[in-house]
């Protein structure tokens, strides 16, 4: 009996390892069942639906009413599923999860294209694509916009409690990296718990690119963070808006959209709190809609993309989550207050200093390690 059990276990393990190696030789695709190109995809027409939409999106990133509107208009269900990091989403797709539409960020689009995980965008099925601002039609991470369509974009910057920092502060990364300044705030500061964002901010303050691939520069950035560590009370990517408006911290590092609802909800509002993009520049990120090669309902996915690129629907998205829209036609429907806000829509001059995070390939593991060193 025992011998039999062992034999079965052994055979199973061998089969699995062999199959794993085999799938690697076969195009080197970890998804194993993933078709190679979009050629096999059915051609879709505008407004065509071919079943319910499996939509894999960031948590709380779309107005539920827009979903309901789409369901009513096209008579299909939208099954929503949520992720909280690009990498979690990637791991899921690589493990064979089937979704019709996903929302990867810029650098992740590049990785997924290289991994052969994205089917191309059938532009004929998305007539509203003409509404896109030309700037977003040809991004560096996806030349020609072959695989992705911009969803929304935003920046990373600093939330400031002016009752502590004062009204006339310099909008600079010095607010969190200069020990002389930081030591004066009662309450301390928080930085994002994200190696690329936080190391990136330090690199920017030092005058380097936030996509640096130099270990010396990373070491400098780690030293910079370590030098102010006694004033950093948290590395937090989730509640940077809340800890600011409850007065827990004086300055927090976070994503643009998060701050707006939080600050609006407070009594003192914008008289006391504000959000700035440091003058040295920072991160700009673009989230994109894309159809994975495993999609079973690509036509519904394209129709949904087209639906969100509609001028009014695109505006509704921004009016709901306070992130900037890449949809030029939507501007006339966007709340003017949002449109005029220099922190949601940064000035052209500032925009030039913003950088997109790109994947650094083999160097990526160093960001995680130097970030861990900075926190030690």
């Amino acid at each position, binding site marked *: 009996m025992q011998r039999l*059990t062992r034999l079965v276990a052994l055979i199973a393990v061998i089969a699995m390892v062999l199959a794993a190696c085999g799938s690697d030789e076969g195009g080197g695709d970890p998804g194993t069942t993933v078709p190679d190109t979009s050629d096999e995809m059915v051609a879709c027409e505008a407004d065509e639906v071919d079943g319910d939409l499996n939509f894999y999106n960031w948590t709380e990133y779309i107005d539920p009413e827009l979903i309901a509107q789409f369901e009513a208009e096209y008579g299909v269900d939208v099954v929503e599923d949520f992720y909280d990091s690009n*990498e979690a989403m990637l791991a899921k797709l690589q493990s064979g999860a089937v979704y019709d539409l996903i929302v990867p960020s810029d650098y992740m689009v590049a990785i997924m294209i290289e991994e052969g995980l994205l089917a191309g965008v059938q532009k004929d099925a998305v007539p509203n694509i003409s509404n896109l601002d030309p700037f977003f039609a040809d991004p560096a991470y996806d030349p020609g916009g072959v695989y992705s369509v911009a969803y929304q974009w935003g920046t990373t910057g600093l939330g400031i409690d002016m009752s502590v920092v004062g009204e006339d502060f310099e909008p600079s990364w010095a607010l969190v990296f200069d020990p002389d300044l930081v030591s004066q705030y009662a309450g301390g500061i928080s930085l994002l718990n994200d190696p690329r964002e936080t190391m990136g901010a330090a690199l920017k303050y030092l005058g380097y690119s936030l996509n640096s691939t130099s270990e010396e520069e990373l070491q400098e950035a780690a030293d910079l963070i370590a030098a102010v560590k006694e004033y950093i009370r*948290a590395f937090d990517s989730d509640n940077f808006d809340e800890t600011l408006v409850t007065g827990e911290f004086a300055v927090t590092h976070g994503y643009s959209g998060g701050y707006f609802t939080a600050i609006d909800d407070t009594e003192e509002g914008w008289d006391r709190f504000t959000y700035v993009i440091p003058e040295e520049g920072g991160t700009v990120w673009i989230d994109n809609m894309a159809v994975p090669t495993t999609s079973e309902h690509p036509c519904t996915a394209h129709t949904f993309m087209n639906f969100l690129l509609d001028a009014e629907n695109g505006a509704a998205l921004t009016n709901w989550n306070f992130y900037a829209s890449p949809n030029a036609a939507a501007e006339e429907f966007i709340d003017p207050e949002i449109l005029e806000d220099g922190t949601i829509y940064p000035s052209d001059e500032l925009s030039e200093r913003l950088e997109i995070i790109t994947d650094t390939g083999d160097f990526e593991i160093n960001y995680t390690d130097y970030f861990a060193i900075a926190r030690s």
Partner: protein
Amino acid sequence: MASEGGERGERLMTTTRRRPDLDEETPVTPELEKAAEKAESRRGFLISVPAYGYLVLFFALPLVLVLVYSFASRSSTGRTLLEDWNVESYRRLFSDLVLEISARSFLLALVTTLLCLVVSYPFAYYIATRTPRIRNVLLVLVMIPFWSNFLVRTYAWRVILGSDGFVSQISQAFGGEEIRVLFTIWAVLIGLVYGYLPFMVLPLYAAIERLDWSLVEAARDLYANGFTAFRKVTLPLSMPGVVAGSILVFIPSLGAYVTPAILGGARETLLGDYIVSQFLTARNWPFGSALSFAVMFVMLLATIFYFRAGAKTL
């Protein structure tokens, strides 16, 4: 397995008596004994087959895969390449960074375990020495808070410990200063102890409840000192509970990363946090696998060692 021979005779008696389908008149021959034993063994095996199969398929096999992955290599896009097998991931385990992170996590888990033990022992002792009815009520009261959501409980602590929180407000009401507990190591410890206390209370309760109290009485007569009696009799007798509870608290504390992040602000990198970041940030699965495997292996050795040590004191 060494004990098998000794139990054989006793086992056999049970076996023959338990089989009504055997004619009682049949003389018990060695062949029959053997056959009965074999049948018994087969029956035991058959009953265990579902669990055996399930655990091999959904536990042992995945564990082997983690081992295989730990020798693989990372592509520049962060994919795991099942080729170029190497031991680089294991070499990295001994880097200063990993050792420092491990030492820190180990210390945190140790302190958490000790705190749990100190808080739980008198508590479990108190519960175990009540009447059975009160005992059950008290135990259910220990369990109830843990039927709510773990994250929500942790966030509730955030409200209590924040600079506007109750602790601080009470201090200020008595003319003290604003107390900032949140985002300090104390908040992390409070959160971890809170989360894992039942794992300590329950085994301790079970051990103390089963004590032979006549021994304690005898010790009292002998030493005439409550404390000495406790030290020489009660404590050693409840050692299995201490050992089991310590392991049940130590293991999850070592891998904890959500509580330190929410209550401690993730100011220091911990082991759990570092492993997760290998999978979800650096996308370095081979290294993440090696780390996971190493943690589990050390944990296993420690458990075996700890049980052995604990068993010796019995």
